[in-house]
């Protein structure tokens, strides 16, 4: 540079020119590579996006022509073929401002007039909002679901811009009935909550979706169960109710209800609040309903051999804790009396004789230590007392405290107790005859026969008298457990349950009715315990569902309790 700068003016300019040219060329070359990098980055973004879209589940539905002829989603029916969920060819109301061509007003009348006419057809329409939407001239939905007769009336308005595309929709013809069993289909077309979620793949599989899927539910039984539960729940101002009807020999669920329910046809914030399933998801300390299970375990183990033997019924003081009965039942009680009067003290002493290992093993055999066996996605894990039970824990579990399970656990356990002693998983799929799982033996058949007598005696002479529907040979056990609150159990906040089976001479179905926090009202004679609110639900329900399920009322038949009857003193009549 130095040598050049002292040369003539002309050559300096030339050299400068060459330098400029070289410099700008170098810069341009490097920046061309920058540009290439920018494009590489954009292409990478596009490729990542393609990959993300490709693995998102929106693509999995590959549409082919044959599939277009099938319903978009298979039907669900109950065990008798009654449709519970079906594809429904519905109309939507779509605003197409270009229907009259480009330019000019999209509507013949004014936006306000059209909105007023639409509001006359759909009273819940937001007239001002629709008028704004029409005036703005932007395409969009006005309504997602329009009934055929309303569609005709919309046509009669005579606006071409109001189009009614046909869209298939999921429709639940029974409304909110069986909502927790069925679930719903969300806006993306995926099943949620109930069997819609469980069967999602099956229902959308092109090879399978032309055939309806039958559930084990019987719609008539489901309706009766929901009706009786709702009546019982409202009569005592309970927070909620749960109920289940279970086939004791196959594990098929005939009806399953959790109240308050939601409407799968209309999912909103209100509905989402109630999607929680009390039967399979919520665990409760179910209280005295566990006593028959303890007694059955004791009979099975040979600890209870003599039903006339009298046990001490004084309060049990152990480890700074005293187990009492709800009211004094006398100094001594035998086993039938302890169940009839629901004695905590006698049950605790029997469990103490039985020992924690045996009771714990029976509870494990009944599936009380794992989530309930059913297809539904929401299943609650029990609060299980663990491996090593101290003496006190053994005693409290014997009358249903210190262990929390779902009502479905209890139903399966009662089924095993009365069906001859075999535990089977519950199912919501309809089973072909003979296709019931083999299950596992928990109790001896002789134990099961004894338990039928004892459960029947509770319903005839004891706390279950309100459930004793004439002719249906109901047997069952009440349970009124205090709910745990801050600083111990709350005496006035109960979960009251009635766990029953019928007919006791040849048990076919287990029925569980549970009320969450019932209040004392006139309807329950100002009582909060299960004998006054849950037992009557079963008492009303069994005569309604018995004939539907093939159980006829018969006064001439009953389980033979003549050998135990003389052991009951006093008020048994």
């Amino acid at each position, binding site marked *: 540079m130095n040598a050049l700068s002292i040369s003539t003016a002309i050559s300096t300019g030339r050299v*400068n*020119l060459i330098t*400029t*040219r070289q*410099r*700008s*060329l170098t*810069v*341009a*070359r*490097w*920046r*061309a*590579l*920058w*540009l*290439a990098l920018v*494009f*590489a980055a*954009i*292409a990478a*973004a*596009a*490729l990542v*996006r*393609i*990959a993300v*879209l*490709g693995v*998102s589940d*929106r*693509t*999995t*539905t*590959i*549409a*082919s*022509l044959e599939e*277009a002829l099938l319903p978009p989603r298979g039907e669900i029916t109950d065990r008798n073929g009654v449709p519970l969920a079906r594809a429904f060819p519905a109309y939507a109301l*779509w605003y197409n401002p270009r229907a009259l061509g*480009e*330019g000019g007003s999209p509507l013949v009348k004014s936006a306000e007039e059209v909105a007023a006419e639409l509001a006359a057809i759909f009273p819940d329409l937001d007239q001002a909002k629709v008028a704004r939407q029409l005036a703005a001239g*932007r*395409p*969009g*939905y006005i309504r997602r679901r329009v009934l055929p007769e309303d569609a005709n009336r919309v046509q009669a308005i005579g606006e071409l811009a109001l189009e009614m595309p046909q869209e298939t929709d999921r429709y639940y013809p029974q409304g909110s009935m069986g909502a927790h069993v069925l679930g719903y289909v969300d806006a993306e077309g995926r099943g949620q909550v109930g069997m819609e979620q469980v069967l999602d793949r099956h229902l959308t599989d092109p090879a399978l979706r032309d055939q309806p899927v039958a559930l084990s539910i019987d719609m008539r039984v489901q309706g009766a169960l929901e009706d009786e539960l709702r009546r019982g729940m409202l009569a005592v101002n309970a927070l909620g109710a749960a109920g289940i009807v279970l086939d004791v020999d196959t594990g098929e669920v005939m009806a399953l209800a959790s109240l308050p329910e939601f409407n799968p046809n209309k999912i909103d914030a209100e509905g989402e609040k109630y999607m929680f399933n009390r039967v399979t998801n919520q665990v409760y300390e179910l209280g005295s309903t566990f006593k028959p299970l303890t007694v059955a375990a004791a009979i099975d183990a040979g600890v209870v051999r003599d039903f006339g033997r009298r046990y001490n019924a004084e309060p049990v003081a152990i480890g700074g804790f005293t187990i009492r009965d709800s009211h004094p039942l006398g100094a001594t009680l035998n086993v039938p009396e302890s169940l009839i009067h629901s004695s905590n003290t006698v049950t605790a002493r029997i469990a103490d004789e039985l020992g924690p290992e045996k009771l714990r093993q029976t509870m494990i055999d009944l599936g009380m230590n794992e989530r309930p066996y059913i297809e539904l996605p929401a299943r609650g894990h029990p609060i299980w007392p663990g491996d090593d039970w101290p003496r006190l824990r053994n005693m409290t579990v014997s009358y249903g405290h210190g262990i929390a399970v779902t009502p479905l656990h209890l139903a399966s356990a009662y089924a095993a107790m009365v069906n001859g002693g075999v535990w089977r998983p519950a199912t919501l799929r309809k089973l072909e005859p003979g296709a019931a799982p083999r299950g596992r033996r928990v109790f001896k058949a002789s134990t099961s026969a004894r338990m039928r007598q004892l459960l029947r005696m509770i319903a005839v002479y004891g706390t279950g008298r309100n459930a004793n529907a004439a002719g249906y040979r109901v047997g069952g056990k009440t349970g009124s457990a205090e709910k745990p609150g801050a600083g111990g159990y709350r005496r006035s906040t109960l979960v009251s349950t009635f766990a029953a089976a019928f007919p006791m001479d040849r048990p076919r179905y287990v029925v569980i009715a549970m009320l969450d926090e019932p209040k004392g009202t006139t309807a329950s004679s100002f009582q909060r315990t299960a004998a006054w609110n849950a037992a009557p639900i079963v008492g009303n329900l069994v005569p309604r569902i018995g004939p539907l399920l093939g159980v006829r009322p018969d006064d001439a038949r009953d389980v033979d309790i003549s050998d135990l009857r003389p052991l009951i003193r006093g008020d048994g009549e």
Partner: protein
Amino acid sequence: MSATQPYIPRAGERAPRPDRFRTSRRAELKIWWREIDRVLLFLILALMAIGAAAVAAASPASASRLSTSDQQLPDLYFYWAHLRWQLLGLAAMFGAAILSRENARRAGIVLFAGMFAMLVLVPIAGYEVNGARRWIDLGVSFQPSEFLKPAFVITLAWIIAWRARDPNIPVVAIATAIMGAVGVLLMMQPNLGDTVLFAGVWFALVVLSGVSTRRLGAVIGGGLVAGVLVYLFYENGRNRINDFLGGGTAFDQVDLAQRTLLAGGWTGSGLWLGIRKMSLPEAHTDYIFSVIGEEFGLLVCAVIVLLYLAIVVRVLVRLADEEDLFTLLAGAGLAVLIGGQAFINILVNLQLAPSKGMTLPLVSYGGSSTIAVCLTVGLLLAITRRNPFLKRGRPGVWQRLFGRESRQ
């Protein structure tokens, strides 16, 4: 130096033609074949073949959509029309590619003058389609803005390359003034998509011209301000941006496009077996990428993305060895033009950008647009011609980056 008198320009006297080896037409073609970028040509032809298949797939959808009760279009109406346009386009491409670099530049400048004049005429003599006045009818009807694109790039590159002769010419200011004039004319139509594309190409050329990074930052800031202005004052653009940000409504164009794109999964439903495309507006033009997604699958979509990237990168990387400023600018500008339009369209289809109304170059159906894109490619081939027997004198970018000989 020869002993003859050196040439001094005087009135009425032309420079004597340098003696050239006289060649036959056949030999010239052979030389041409040796000089052009054959990899680029192959990539372009591959994309055009995919385009023919894609238009065949989309044609029934658009034909049934555009049929009226008076006139029923046959299913493959757009396919046969597209093949005819592609033949014309190939002719235009070959005609442009056979030019020498200098003649390609001259042709570009003349084309710019002509098309700019047409663009001025559009608001007066043009006619309206779909609410925008973009077309002009001179015996054959066409969109001047389509043909303006390659001419604009070449003219801007030529102007910026003036700097190599006289550093005192305010080349960037002139280029910006031209951009402003074109932008105003385009927005009068209105045509936001093409304005964005022209601005992008202009920006790429300004970047290449060596403007300092600080001023580049200012330009990007100005671009953001322009975006806000568009949002505030251009209603159609505002609606589209709102749709993009707010997710739009179900079953609007964008949503339909995505449903179509995803309907085929990875491997597609097969040619003419797609269903979703039937409800897609502009299936054969703006949303052909989605139709490809349904019928040929997402994998083919990825292949198309890679093809466009390969074209852009091939051109830009090859230019990194270039000694001539005009060639570098024009070649890079034309590559950015094709790649930019392609990626805007692809990003719209993938819902990564608000919808613009821009075709996928070389693939979408189109009359004047197909010919214009082919002409662009032809000019690109002509400008990037390079004698394969000439080697670099000084080390280029490649040697400096990797320390080895560059290819060609």
